[in-house]
């Protein structure tokens, strides 16, 4: 499934290189700074420069093209739609008018500028986040967030979610496959099949939820036997050389 490519990003962030070794707090700060600049400042130059930088970083760590395209394409396509909308519908001084299939399309200068700005902003901000996630394991990000005074509760739940997403993911996929093998997901282009697929999906959701609930009981017990006192990430274990 598509989501496999998401998990690929996680696997990629585990590799060892200059960027993964860098302190996560620095990477987060740089990313936030770059994002702010891209979004707050006008003009084409800055987003282009940043995009060039992030691209070369991704090249340097040899990111597979599959990951980059998989993650860049959807927002870029959406951005392109917006770009078209803006260029055609934004009022202002006309640059060009086209006749397509008897329809008169007018392109306005302001719209073109705006559309391009938005498109470039999207491309470069997605690439910034991509770089961050390709070089930083989520648990490191979690601890960086703590340092940035994000409420502890949020970070703790985030880390538990990250940890157990993989466990539940495997379980959920197995249930889904077991359903598929007994024809629980027939072709949903006909009404009966569609109903079945929706039914199977809601059963799957409920089963995963029930599993999660039961596992929480055991996890809590395991925490208790190791002196749990209400804090899940009491203190980060320092990396040792």
């Amino acid at each position, binding site marked *: 499934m598509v989501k*496999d490519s998401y998990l*690929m990003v996680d*696997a990629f962030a585990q590799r060892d290189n200059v960027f993964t070794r860098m302190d996560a707090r620095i990477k987060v700060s740089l990313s936030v700074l770059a994002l702010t600049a891209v979004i707050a400042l006008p003009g084409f130059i800055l987003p282009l420069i940043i995009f060039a930088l992030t691209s070369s970083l991704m090249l340097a760590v040899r990111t597979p093209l599959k990951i980059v395209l998989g993650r860049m394409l959807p927002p870029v396509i959406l951005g392109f739609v917006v770009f078209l909308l803006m260029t055609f519908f934004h009022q202002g001084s006309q640059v060009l008018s086209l006749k397509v299939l008897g329809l008169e399309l007018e392109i306005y200068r302001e719209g073109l500028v705006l559309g391009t700005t938005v498109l470039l902003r999207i491309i470069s901000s997605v690439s910034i986040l991509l770089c961050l996630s390709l070089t930083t394991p989520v648990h490191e990000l979690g601890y960086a967030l703590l340092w940035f005074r994000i409420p502890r509760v949020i970070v703790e739940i985030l880390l538990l979610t990250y940890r157990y997403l993989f466990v539940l993911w495997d379980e959920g996929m197995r249930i889904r496959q*077991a359903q598929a093998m007994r*024809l629980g997901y027939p072709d949903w282009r006909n009404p009966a099949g569609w109903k079945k697929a929706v039914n199977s999906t809601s059963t*799957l959701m409920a089963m995963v939820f029930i599993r999660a609930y039961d596992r929480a009981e055991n996890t809590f017990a395991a925490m208790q036997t190791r002196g749990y006192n209400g804090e899940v990430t009491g203190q980060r274990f320092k990396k040792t050389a």
Partner: protein
Amino acid sequence: MIMEVHQVQYTYSDGTKALEGVNLQIPGGQFTILLGPNGSGKTTFFKVITGLLKPEQGDINIEGRPLQEFSREELYRRIGFVFQDPNDQLFAPTVGDDVAFGPVNLKLPPDEVSKRVRDALEMVGIPHLINKPVHYLSYGQKKRAAIAGVLAMKPGIIILDEPTAGLDPGGVREIMQLLVKLNKKEGISILMATHDVDLVPLYADRIFILHMGHILLAGTPAEVFSRKEIVRGAQLRLPRVAHLAEILANRDHLAVAELPLTIGEARKMILSNVNGDVDAYGS
């Protein structure tokens, strides 16, 4: 051949090469065991041959036809897959509903559906549990219910991923006897994965040893376990009685013509040594 697999490769998206060119042939009607250590690719292989994962490379033929030519429905009428954890597989609230799930999806008439449900539960020996909620079943009963759900599709091959894992000795015996019955009486081909070495010689017609995504050895239990070094190199071991016989042969120089794999074979071997009629035994 009910199944032929040729040079199948599969790599997970994180880069793990789980299968690196698996070849095997399974004749119809046999009880086949796939033996392999943790992480050798057993589950991956089963998912590939049941069409749940697409191999990057290789051919799979079921009953002589390429796998990809089958529609889902055709395929799952032929192949049933029992997952390791029965909780993954029992999704309806009651046992009866769950077993009916497949037949209903096959769009069988209601009479036929309820006949199949009753027959399947009868075969696995839990007809009385038909209206029980699934989560009140014991682990062994869940295993049986999961097998019944697959049986109700009337497949020609049943594939089971570690069907005895987590069961006590009594439960193991019951499940294995159930599988033997399905194999011998109903003529269903059985293909199961396990790493319980002692089970193999008791039940398997033919075994395959999978290790790091390769088939290391194939053949009858006697053929495979005679290659002791290879078996041990694959994080496996010999059946306990075979290990005993090996020590008796190597260190104590008893006469061991062929390594005994079951208690019955070991008994014969020891008796012939005790009685001194080694020739009679060797024949």
